[in-house]
């Protein structure tokens, strides 16, 4: 019903340019158009985001799909269901300390690699990509995986490691400052995965199906807008969400992501992506058990929204 606005509490896993379409939806008023009021909260880290969702501190979470598998594997009675995809590739980049003109993945052999913490999506994708290029992450190089997500950049900047796996905008910043050089994108290498997805408890989805449809519709609208606009235009719209980042940097980063097709163009989480995710998790030894696509993914909402 459009007369009354419904409030939806969203917990995002972090504040990142990677989630540009979401901020576009907020900033361009797509949610308001649908009669939704979004109460956005940043709950740093997948663990806290999922906890917020499970302990009813939030209605919808924006976080990696792997968490839904973890939760399901622990025997949740009311599992968390993925219903709208936001990003479809990994968002990290491979940054090297020295400038390398003709980078080949073999350069990583024998080096010290500063990776992400165990159990998270970036780490799993990182190892997956390395393996894909014939590198055994635990034997062919010195792998440092002990650092909390937010502290990885400063560990690298203060001299640890030859290579580092970094999120934006830090990767571009390092490039700018000459601390490191982006040599590859994990997003390009990983193939499509449900990297960041909107999800909610099953019970919530059932009880608020209409609202969730509206929510997905707003997201879809934003995805189309992002697809059809330049990085410069996008950066301008989302700038208010990144107070302390320079506009030019936002633009660079947006362009990077846009160019490698990180932003999903529609909210549907495909089965192929799902299996890719499980495959990646399995290779890292973090997959507690195989979970059927249908069990944790709701495509009905997205499909209906796209039909209209």
């Amino acid at each position, binding site marked *: 019903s459009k007369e009354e606005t419904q409030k939806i509490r969203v917990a995002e896993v972090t504040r990142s340019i990677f989630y540009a379409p979401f901020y576009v939806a907020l900033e361009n008023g797509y949610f308001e158009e649908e009669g939704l009021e979004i109460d956005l909260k940043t709950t740093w880290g997948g663990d*806290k985001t999922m906890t917020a969702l499970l302990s009813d501190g939030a209605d919808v979470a924006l976080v990696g799909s792997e968490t839904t598998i973890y939760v399901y594997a622990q025997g949740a009675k009311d599992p968390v269901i993925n219903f709208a995809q936001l990003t479809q590739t990994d968002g990290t980049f491979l940054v090297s300390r020295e400038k390398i003109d003709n980078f080949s993945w073999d350069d990583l052999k024998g080096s010290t690699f500063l990776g992400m913490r165990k159990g998270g999506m970036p780490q799993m994708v990182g190892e997956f990509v390395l393996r894909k290029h014939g590198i055994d992450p635990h034997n062919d190089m010195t792998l440092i995986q002990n650092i909390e997500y937010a502290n990885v950049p400063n560990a690298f900047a203060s001299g640890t490691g030859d290579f580092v796996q970094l999120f934006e905008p830090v990767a571009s910043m390092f490039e700018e400052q000459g601390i490191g050089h982006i040599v590859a994108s994990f997003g390009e290498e990983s193939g499509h995965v449900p990297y960041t997805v909107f999800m909610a408890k099953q019970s919530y989805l059932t009880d608020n199906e209409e609202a969730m449809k509206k929510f997905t519709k707003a997201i879809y609208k934003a995805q189309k807008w992002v697809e059809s606009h330049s990085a410069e235009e996008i950066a301008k719209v989302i700038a208010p969400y990144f107070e302390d980042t320079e506009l030019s940097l936002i633009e660079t980063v947006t362009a990077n992501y846009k160019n490698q097709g990180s932003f999903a163009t529609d909210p549907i989480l495909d089965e192929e992506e799902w299996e890719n995710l499980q495959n990646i998790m399995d290779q890292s030894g973090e997959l507690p058990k195989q979970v059927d696509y249908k069990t944790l993914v709701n495509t009905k909402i997205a499909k209906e929204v796209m039909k209209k």
Partner: protein
Amino acid sequence: MQSFFKLFGRRWIVLKTERLLQLQKSYVKKLRKEKHFILLMQFVIFLSFFALWELSSTLHWIDPLLFSKPSKIISLFFEKLAEGTMLTHVGVTLLETIFGFLLGTSIGTILAAILWSSNLFAKVSDPYLVILNAMPKVALGPILIVSFGPGYVSIIAMGAIISVIITTLVVYSAFNNVDENYVKVMKTFGATKWQCFKEVILPNCFPTIISTLKVNVGLSWVGVIVGEFLVSQKGLGYLIIYGFQVFNFTLVLLSLIIIAVFATLMYKLVEVVEHKLIKNHSNS
């Protein structure tokens, strides 16, 4: 020689007040000189620290990206101040800390009173108190988030929980260490247990309670910062985490400095309150 002394002695009597005044004057002068020297030294240290920082950052002796530099921090500070966001962050953290602090102290004191009132209860709960006390409370972060949700409540709970057990133990031991002769005096007048508590035990331990406040302020800051590291949208701990996220070390260091300033102010405030309240308490 003796005559010299006689003479001197005599002269001294005549000049007595004058001489004393002179002694006083040179003493005060020495004191003032020392004080000025100390202030100067402190100032020099302060200045050279920041100057060295600025210099080494500018000359790239240290990585300016990681260690920023004072001039940048100051300009960021004014920028944030102009925007008005800094005040909100500081306000949020301060409020959380004060709430956590007051909660922790008052709950701790009440628990101590309950323990005091029932010896049996105290004995039964002893091992649990020891465990709770030894437990590093920051490890409970995840549990708090699960229990209180990811919001202010969790942060304040962290600020409170970190000080509540230690307050209980310290205040309870103070209750028990009250010189029993004070209680004996009360008992000779036929006082009840509650009267003894109200008139003797509590006022006697007031200084201890106030002293725990000083410790608790510090603990509450730790709790709130750790809490804000885990869940927050606003506040100085949030700024640190956020600053890291966007690799803005100027912001991180600015937040650290502001935390240091406010933590110190709060500590000093409690100290002033302590001095005021305890003044009449001390027995000569």
